[in-house]
């Protein structure tokens, strides 16, 4: 087995995320690729972000000036309120103006599905009766040639690179993930390159013994990095809980540009990598976020002779 794809987070971002790229980030509450996103911020890239709910990961990238365009459907701090950097960018152009291409959850996810399927668009029953299509002429409608029903056509999105975080992967990028997976698979399949960070790097035999759990096969993966706690402050099902205190603190401590910069200096620029970030979080915090074990029963795929 070659290990050409296995590298540091810094190298993976340097080699596979380029200025001007459109990037997709996977996850929803669970498995946001925060460690990869923080490295993108440290390398000061200038990007289009494609994500239905970028929540505070997107907010941090916007506040750091890494995003010139956002393709999205919801951006807030879940169950808390506003994402302050996003609001500053849209309302006041601070730290810079961002272009918005705004849809709804079903439309963004349908556009990625079309990209993942290699078709130019996907018909859907969405966006009717809403003001969004008026702002985005690329959304078209048609009457179904079979039933006459009114359909909304969602044009395919094919991001340049997908950043995803999973529970375990082998050195080739064959990736196992579980829990709430959201759009990770469609986003990875729609993208030209995939960068995977994982809680654990495992032997390929572990993957082979449970292939139904493989979300993304390694052949489409460009780089694999080992970043334990790489989804913090979001959760990694079975590994750690969502850090609710962090989300509350982020709400309180990023209300002005100055405060945001202080926060970013401490938690993003102030650490070299995820390892330093994790030691900064401290053992007490880490222990508090670990769930009790609640194992599923193993399945038996059988050995055939």
């Amino acid at each position, binding site marked *: 087995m070659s290990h050409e794809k296995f590298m540091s987070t810094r190298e993976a971002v340097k080699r596979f995320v380029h200025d001007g790229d459109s990037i997709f980030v996977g996850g*929803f509450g669970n498995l946001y690729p925060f460690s990869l996103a923080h490295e993108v911020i440290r390398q000061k890239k200038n990007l289009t972000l494609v994500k239905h709910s970028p929540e505070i990961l997107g907010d941090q990238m916007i506040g750091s000036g890494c995003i010139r365009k956002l393709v999205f459907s*919801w951006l807030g701090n*879940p169950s808390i309120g506003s994402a302050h950097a996003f609001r500053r960018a849209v309302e006041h152009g601070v730290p810079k103006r961002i272009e918005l291409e705004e849809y*709804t959850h*079903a439309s963004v996810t349908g556009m*990625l599905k079309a990209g993942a399927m290699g078709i130019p668009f996907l018909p859907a029953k969405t966006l009717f009766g809403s*003001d969004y299509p008026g702002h985005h002429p690329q959304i078209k409608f048609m009457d179904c040639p079979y039933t006459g029903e009114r359909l909304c056509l969602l044009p395919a999105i094919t991001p340049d690179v997908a950043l995803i975080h999973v529970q375990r992967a082998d050195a080739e990028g064959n990736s196992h993930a579980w829990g709430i997976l959201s759009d990770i698979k469609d986003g990875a399949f729609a993208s030209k390159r995939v960068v995977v960070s994982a809680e654990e790097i495992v032997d390929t035999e572990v993957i082979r013994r449970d292939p139904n759990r493989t979300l993304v096969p390694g052949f489409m993966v460009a780089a694999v990095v080992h970043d334990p706690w790489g989804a913090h402050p979001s*959760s990694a099902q079975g590994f750690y809980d969502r850090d609710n205190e962090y989300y509350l603190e982020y709400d309180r401590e990023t209300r002005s540009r100055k405060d945001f910069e202080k926060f970013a200096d401490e938690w993003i620029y102030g650490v070299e990598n995820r390892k330093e970030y994790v030691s900064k979080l401290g053992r007490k915090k880490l222990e508090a976020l670990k769930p009790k074990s609640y194992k599923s029963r193993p399945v038996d795929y059988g050995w055939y002779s």
Partner: protein
Amino acid sequence: MVQLMPTARHRGRPAVDFTPEEMMVVAAARELRDRERVFVGIGLPVLATLLAQRDHAPSLLTIYESGAIGSRPSRLAMTMGDPALGSRCLAILDFFECFATMVQRDFVDVGFLGAAQLDRYGNMNSTVIGDYLKAKVRLPGSGGACEIAGNVKRFLIIMPHDRKRFVEKIDFRTSPGYLSGRDERQREGLRGGGPDAVISTLGVLRFDESGQMYLDSYHRNSSVGKVRENTGWNLKVSPKVRETPPPTEEQVRLLREELDPKGIFLRKPSA
């Protein structure tokens, strides 16, 4: 299987002491029926759904936007993608499947929505205050609200009641209610039934044949006058308007002691 959950609908003494938010959760729970498939939102809708399951709808099936179906969360969920929803559930669909094969495919009976602005036809704005290109206040956006409003059999709107929110004209139509009249929906291609009720901090409002909102009941410490005062148009009032039946003591106890013991979504009454 042994039925473990009590079905104590309308049983128990009415509570004397309850908060407006507790009233809202109880009023919303009453709108849910047993065996319905409910698309749940975080916050008060989660509590309304959990309460309905404990109170009168033990076989109600929850569907979360993150794709978790039939979750039995060990603690309150803080986000749609909360790992507490991804453990102990019946199925987890991915995001596309959840919208395409649940919402679009017609499997959802009831949805919950909230908004920053609402008009008399139940059209909602959760996108922007001011002009879209010159936002005065930029809000988080639709999320799944637009397609929930468009596709589910009926939906409930839960929100605070004041003149800033209940407005004559919304600044942006994120999610459709009855547009400008009940029969407008079909013409626009919308298949779902539209808004069924609005549960506000002041009362319960419903929609007449023309698709316009009217006041059906006002909560304790509210009144017809207070609701109308806090509504930005000349609100219709049902000839049968009455006080919203208060929660039972048991419902308040369930909310305070079991469903939200830390007071995350329901502030405790000030002592």
